[in-house]
């Protein structure tokens, strides 16, 4: 058996390496362009803002790796936050209220997954439906009015301090490590990727694809609810319109991070780096006092170029590696 010289590892982590380079280039540029950028207060700000995106994008990485999509995460974050707020208003403890909010997120996720898997309906349209449904519920149960004023033990989750860091950052870091372990090393992660790669192969191996698909969306619902916790706690307000467009931001980060929209390939590290990159970009544009309209434009351009680059590279790159692998295999 001849071993190929071309190990596939560099090929696999190449998009992430490129992201890191872009990230470094941005950091260097911004450090030179503004004396405020490389200060701890500012960086802390970047991490703080990115942590929300990271938490949501982690769940989204699983969904997209499995070949699906979840458009309901922003609305689910709002609905969960509202549920936590109502539970606390109703006199329940902070811990129980948070658990209720997470359960609501998980429930909507499981509902997403059930309809998608059991009835075999396109995830785009199903989660679009649940997006509207969750947003509608959040508006109905609050009467459209934000709920505010929570116990300190709750707002700590958004604005507390743990040394120089804060709970959302640590939550994001903890979730990222957990997600990386689960996606790359657990059976659940293996099946998530297999679902995206070839669902039929997994089914024929005797694995319950319904169970795993529902679990993937359930997980995404729970991470959306965790995002809802962070938003609600940070603002000390449960806002039924919170998390607007958050689904698109997290999908963008996941795709920018190198996870394949076709499914079968997912990178937690890539998602993490992409969230930081987008966070630094937003921060940098503010520091350089570039009008916020340009933020949208620039973020759009970055995402498009990243996706086009990845696609072109995979078409060319895969074809050439393919030939090499074949010719060396005797």
């Amino acid at each position, binding site marked *: 058996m001849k071993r190929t010289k071309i190990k596939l590892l560099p090929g696999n982590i190449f998009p992430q390496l490129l992201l890191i380079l872009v990230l470094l280039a941005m950091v260097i540029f911004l450090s030179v362009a503004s004396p405020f950028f490389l200060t701890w207060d500012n960086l802390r700000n970047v991490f703080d803002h990115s942590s929300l995106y990271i938490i949501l994008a982690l769940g989204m990485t699983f969904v997209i790796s499995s070949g699906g999509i979840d458009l309901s995460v922003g609305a689910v974050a709002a609905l969960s936050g509202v549920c936590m707020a109502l539970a606390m208003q109703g006199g329940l403890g902070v811990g129980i209220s948070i658990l209720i909010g997470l359960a609501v997120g998980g429930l909507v996720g499981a509902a997403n997954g059930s309809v998608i898997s059991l009835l075999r309906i396109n995830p785009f349209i199903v989660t679009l439906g649940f997006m509207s449904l969750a947003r509608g519920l959040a508006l109905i149960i609050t009467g459209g009015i934000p709920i505010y004023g929570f116990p300190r033990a709750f707002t700590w989750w958004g604005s507390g301090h743990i040394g120089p860091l804060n709970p959302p950052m640590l939550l994001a870091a903890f979730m990222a490590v957990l997600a990386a372990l689960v996606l790359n090393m657990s059976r659940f992660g293996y099946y998530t990727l*297999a679902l995206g790669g070839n669902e039929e192969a997994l089914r024929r191996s005797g694995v319950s694809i319904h169970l795993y698909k529902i679990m993937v969306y359930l997980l995404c619902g729970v991470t959306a609810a965790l995002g809802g916790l962070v938003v609600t706690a940070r603002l000390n307000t449960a806002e039924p319109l919170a998390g607007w467009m958050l689904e698109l931001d997290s999908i963008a980060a996941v795709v920018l991070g190198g996870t394949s929209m076709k499914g079968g390939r997912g990178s937690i590290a890539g998602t993490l780096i992409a969230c930081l990159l987008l966070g630094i970009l937003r921060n940098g544009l503010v520091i350089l006092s570039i009008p916020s309209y340009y933020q949208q434009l620039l973020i759009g351009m970055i995402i498009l170029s990243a996706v086009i680059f990845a696609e072109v590279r995979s078409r060319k790159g895969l074809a050439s590696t393919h030939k090499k692998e074949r010719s060396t295999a005797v």
Partner: protein
Amino acid sequence: MSNDAGQEKRIPYIRLRNIKKSFGHVIALDGVDLDIYSGEVMALVGDNGAGKSTLIKIISGVLNPDEGELSLNGKTFKHLTPSKAIELGISTVYQDLALVDCRDAASNIFLGREPLKAAFFVDKKRMNRESEELLRRLKVSIPSVTTPVEFLSGGQRQGVAVARSIKLQGRMITFDEPTAAMGVSESARVLKLIRSLGDEGFAVLVISHNLHHVFSIADRICVIRNGRLVKDFRTENTNPDQVVGFITGSNRYSGEYKEENITA
């Protein structure tokens, strides 16, 4: 049913009796009796639409027969399900191979059967090691078990699919057109692999259109025509012309198909 195989003493791995299946008014299988033995490569040949695929789908539990029964290990079943078939040691290497292209060979071989350590982590090292051992035993050579299978050639992919069947504790392995769309040397390697499975004691069922391939590996050749098993040969007792005769129906024999050939 004519049977010059002379296998009366041996117990078949699977025994099919009077299997009937129709789709609407189309009769796909019209009372098939078939015995498949361990340690033997049996080829099922027949024209397009003769009912070969329907038969292997019934054996692998994908389709339920309308009538008839299957016996295995002394038990009789009206029908199987895919997971029941796997449990009973029946595995099928599908035409499309059902591999997860973006995952590596070891992950494909162990798909659905990943060993765990610490009750959570997939034991990748063990998977790689055992996959290497298994592929070596099957004389399938691939660049590395950590190569995604999309980078492998048709024959190598077939090898990975076979290794997975064996990992699923398969005792009977069914191949659906294993050499379709394959080059000459590639086909030769796959045929050798199939032959060696028979020699290792597996019950092997092969569906193929290529009689040259069939004659090079099969111990028995069964001809299916219009949903019926019309002939069951020992390979050494027949020749390709005779088999073609039975496939097309031009070679008539006592009994079963009088009407068609008179009008034809």
